[in-house]
């Protein structure tokens, strides 16, 4: 038994490094429980940094109301909410053509805003963060816009 445990310890290091090498050199998806994940590699830029922020609005009879993603995905685990917004409201997403999704969205929005119809608008902003003389400067730029008819 002791020999087997010793072998386990000897092989665990190459196995972990091999996995790391694989993750670092290949795009996702990796197996769902695999660590490490380099998807969030933080690059250092000396001058500027940016972040993409998505704002979701519902327009009903000319009234425009912002939707909080935490309310829209309230039952979902927190880390998944940002991902869910990106997945279904991105410009590449085909979710708007999915009947099941539209039914779910309509029901959810009705609970949240009492809006029956209208359209949902997702606006993607890119916020540039610049540091000048020690002060933080934020510049907002609209990079994409998606409309889903309800």
């Amino acid at each position, binding site marked *: 038994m*002791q020999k087997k*445990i*010793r072998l*386990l*310890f000897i092989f*665990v*290091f190459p196995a*972990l490094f091999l996995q*790391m090498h694989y993750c670092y050199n290949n795009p*996702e*998806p*990796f*197996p*769902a*429980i*695999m*660590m*490490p*994940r*380099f998807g*969030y*590699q*933080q*690059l*250092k*830029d*000396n*001058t500027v*940094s940016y*972040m993409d*922020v998505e704002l979701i609005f519902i327009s009903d009879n000319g009234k425009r109301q912002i939707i909080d993603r935490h309310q829209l995905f309230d*039952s*979902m*685990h*927190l*880390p*998944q909410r*940002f*991902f*869910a917004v990106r*997945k*279904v409201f991105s410009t590449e997403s085909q*979710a708007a053509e*999915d009947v*099941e*999704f539209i*039914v*779910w969205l309509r029901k959810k929005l009705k609970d949240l805003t009492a809006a029956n119809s209208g359209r949902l608008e997702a606006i993607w902003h890119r*916020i540039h*963060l610049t*540091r000048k003389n*020690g*002060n*933080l400067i*934020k510049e907002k730029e609209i990079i994409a816009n998606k409309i889903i008819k309800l």
Partner: protein
Amino acid sequence: MKTKWIAKLDYWIFESYNIAPDNLALCRISYALFNLFFLFHFNFSWIATYPDTFYHAKPGLTFFFDGFPPAWILNIFNIILTVLNFFLLFGKWTKPVSILISLTLIVSFSFVFAFGNTYHIIMWIIFPAIMAFTNWGAKLSLDSFNTNKIITTWPITFMSILIGFAFFTSGLAKLLGGWLQIGGSASWQYFHIVRSKIGRDLYLSDFIASINNAFFWETLDWLVVGFEVGFIFAVFSARSFRFFICFAILFHFANLLILNISFGIHLVIFMIFINWNMPEITNSNSLKITKQKIHAFIKKHRVYTIFFWIIPYLILFFLYKNHSRVDGILPIEVPVYTIGVSAVIYYFYKKIKLLF
């Protein structure tokens, strides 16, 4: 006959991470209590309320399905997890139960991760399966009445490799991302992105945001990379690793105050590296309560004092779980973590004092 290096390897694997059986039992109880109290977090039935539009299978179990399972299956997972955690709490059939908890969590979380994001809970998921081999049901358990009380510590060494490696990969990504370049600051960027985008601006966030000293921010970059990359080297010495664990707790505590990131579950995992037991104190027949006796009592029962911060945490979490949360953080967590972190600092203060 063992060669010298095999003897060294054996010492590192089987003996270096020694821990008292009481401590192991406390880790088991804490883990089970956390699971039971956090079961709202581990309630998987919410998955079924979302349409399959959200389903993005990754390599693994979810590849064999087209969408999320129905609510009744997820409810079965919830029930199984609850029952298994009660068994773990009271230490009945500890080894198979621990492995089953890991397996059930792996299956359940596969569907959570099918939403697209895999997050840092893997250590929590595999923790009981690894600890099952320590015989962590040897004390404070129903098993202790009829099974052996010998514990093995190689799984703790194994856990140290996984933790060290997880920190290392995080540090390596930063290192390769250029965090050590002079000029600008990645910590500054990351801090402001988290603050502006997610709105994490509680506790010390405003104060830190007001710091405009470039040297401060550059030093942070170097410290974070050095600490995270260095973790993998600390694995080979139990003493160094315990110091790194102490820093990890302080590091996460700072993250809680500055970036508002919760780290409750990791605190329980880190506990297995801290041997809270102190030498036994000689009993005295005198009934007179003296200062020495109080000290002796605290020393003797230090292992149980850990409950003084675990139980309040769980009770407060239970009471406050339905209150508004700011990105997963409860305001009440701060004072409770402060007590936990103080306990760790006190422990290390004692250890350092012994060294000199």
